[in-house]
């Protein structure tokens, strides 16, 4: 039926991405196997799969990052293929190699490709040799010895960036503005990287300032064909954590867009890349693009590409892993504009600290042109063990303006209680004049933090809602009395200026 050389696919991940992969597996007629730690028994991805296998206790290192536990789960479930999602072991060459040795298909780059690109410095050298411009910085690992580290940093020059060689998604990454903070930043980055990736190797790069983050989605088959599925702009980041992503990149002159796509394709070719990947680049104010790194997996933000190109990237990952040939480049055509907002369990009013707890109420927005990828639900525990992303809300529109308006309307209809979220912050970003004008840059969110701070609470409205809730509880839902009340009747003399300016779907004052 399916035409695939495998029938059962184990998804070596959790949360929304595991759920999203399982959805595609079902559509393609493939059986799905979920894995879970003790913290995730009863989690949405576990409930959605055809079968679920426990792989260990809550800490990721003992479950989702444990290669032996996952190999055992593959054996127990009889899976013939593994989709790694993003994060965890998705770019781990040892995992891909162990699967290959066991005759199991890894739905991602083959082990050889991961092995040859496991060290990001090697990658940097290889893409540079392929004609792709790279960011200045030593092409070697950060030394353990403090004095040597400080010397290397001095040579690179401040401000600089400490990055985990095995890192991604902002984990194990630190900006260092001056020598004083270097050692502590390195220690902290090492600890974080060790926890997340099992490797503490760091490297240094010059911090390119005032730049935009533009990345190219590539799709490469096993027959040497490289396809470019446009670019995404992910400049809107907070502490190296992407917050809002869009496709295409706004305001890119055609010539720059062409250069960015060519650099992406060149990087993929230089690495002999196979499967879906992302070539991240910085675009400086002069319009020059710099190779940042290659993400050898599906990105969190892949849905904006799916929305504009009308493709299912997970389906393509599976087809490529099955040896299929990609169609010609001109069959991939983008349409309209898409934007994704990441809803995090964090408290913007308290320095964006993570917010753990149990979700007590949840309204998920729906409507034409919207997609919500989440693994949340009422009763769901948001655990301190894993990523704080609750969901991604993706809007598509004919134009950027339409997509942004649709996303804002969707966020206005989103309600989460039990944990604090950044939904209000996301709406503030969407309302920001620089963002609306498309003048995005990596430092924008930091630079405009003041303007993006939570507005004063609409106290009277909040009180009215609390009172209405308390007084209407148990009331007939469609009370004829209310129905008969007819059109809204404001008391004309009440001081409702504050509410008059308040409208769902529009950023409040």
């Amino acid at each position, binding site marked *: 039926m399916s035409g695939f050389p495998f029938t059962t696919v184990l998804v070596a991940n959790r949360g929304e991405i595991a759920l999203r992969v399982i959805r595609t597996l079902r559509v393609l007629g493939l059986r799905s196997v979920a894995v879970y730690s003790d913290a995730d028994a009863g989690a949405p991805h576990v409930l959605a799969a055809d079968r679920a296998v426990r792989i260990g206790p809550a800490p990721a290192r003992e479950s989702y990052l444990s290669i032996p536990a996952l190999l055992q789960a593959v054996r127990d479930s009889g899976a013939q293929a593994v989709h790694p999602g993003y994060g965890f072991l998705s770019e781990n060459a040892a995992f891909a190699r162990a699967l290959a040795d066991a005759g199991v298909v890894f739905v991602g780059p083959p082990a050889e490709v991961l092995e040859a690109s496991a060290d990001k410095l090697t990658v940097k050298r290889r893409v540079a040799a392929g004609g792709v411009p790279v960011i200045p910085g030593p092409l070697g690992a950060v030394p353990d010895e403090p004095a040597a580290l400080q010397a290397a940093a001095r040579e690179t020059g401040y401000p600089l960036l400490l990055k985990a060689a095995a890192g991604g998604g902002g984990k194990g990454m630190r900006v260092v503005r001056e020598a004083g903070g270097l050692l502590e930043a390195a220690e902290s980055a090492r600890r974080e990287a060790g926890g997340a990736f099992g490797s503490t190797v760091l490297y240094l790069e010059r911090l390119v300032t005032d730049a935009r983050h533009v990345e190219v989605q590539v799709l490469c088959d096993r027959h040497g064909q490289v396809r470019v599925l446009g670019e995404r702009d992910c400049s809107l980041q907070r502490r190296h*954590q992407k917050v809002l992503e869009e496709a295409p990149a706004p305001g890119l002159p055609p010539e720059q867009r062409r250069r960015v796509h060519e650099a992406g394709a060149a990087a993929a070719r230089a690495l002999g890349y196979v499967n879906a990947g992302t070539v991240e680049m910085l675009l400086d104010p002069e319009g020059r693009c710099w190779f940042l790194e290659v993400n050898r997996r599906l990105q969190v933000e892949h849905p904006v590409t799916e929305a504009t190109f009308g493709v299912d990237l997970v389906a393509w990952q599976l087809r490529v892993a099955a040896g299929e040939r990609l169609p010609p480049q001109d069959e991939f055509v983008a349409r309209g504009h898409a934007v994704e907002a990441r809803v995090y369990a964090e408290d913007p009013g308290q320095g964006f600290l993570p917010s753990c707890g149990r979700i007590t109420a949840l309204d998920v927005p729906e409507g034409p042109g919207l997609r919500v990828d989440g693994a949340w639900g009422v009763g769901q525990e948001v655990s*301190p063990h894993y990523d704080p992303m609750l969901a991604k809300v993706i809007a598509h529109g004919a134009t950027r303006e339409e997509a942004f308006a649709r996303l804002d309307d969707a966020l206005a209809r989103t309600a989460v209680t039990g944990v604090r979220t950044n939904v209000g912050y996301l709406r503030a970003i969407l309302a920001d004049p620089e963002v609306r004008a498309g003048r995005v840059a990596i430092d924008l969110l930091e630079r405009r933090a003041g303007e993006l701070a939570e507005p004063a609470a609409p106290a009277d409205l909040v009180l009215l809602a*609390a009172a*209405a809730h308390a007084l209407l509880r148990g009331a007939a839902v469609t009370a004829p*009395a209310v129905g008969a009340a007819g059109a809204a009747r404001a008391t004309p003399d009440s001081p409702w200026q504050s509410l008059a300016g308040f409208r769902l779907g529009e950023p409040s004052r």
Partner: protein
Amino acid sequence: MSAPSFRRRLALGTRVLAAELRLSSEGLLEGHVHEGEARRSLAAEAVRAPDGSVLLRVGGEAVRARVVRQGDVTTVVVGGRAYELRDAEQAAPGQAAAEEPFATSPMTGLVAKVSVAPGARVAAGAPLFIVEAMKMEYVVRATREVVVREVRRKAGEKVALGEVVVAFEASAAGRA
């Protein structure tokens, strides 16, 4: 028939609001709120939606709110933003002083590292412990010079928001 009423003193952040609202049989919510010296009139048409959310209409504007009450906290979500109303009787009369004789966890998570031991004298600004949750870690530092009396959590243990991790000797300053 007397209208059901809502009379509560509630804290919204640092603001304290005393609400007196009545619901007429026609679904009109009316009354006042006192805030310090100020007194404002409020009125809105209120409907409860089948999904339990609340719809308010004021002057032709519609606002939908999701309201959840748990313990003494009422969370009101409007336009995606969540606001927490705390019953003011229970609410602290003022913010706690900066010189508490202990250091608490700023979030629910795991203790990643404890940098001090009982008896240690710690300079202002020096790290006490690190809490880690999800993708983030947070370094808790001494806000003044302190002497550590007790360490209540060790690395790898869970800790809740507001829980004491390190307690100080009552020597240097402040309330003991």
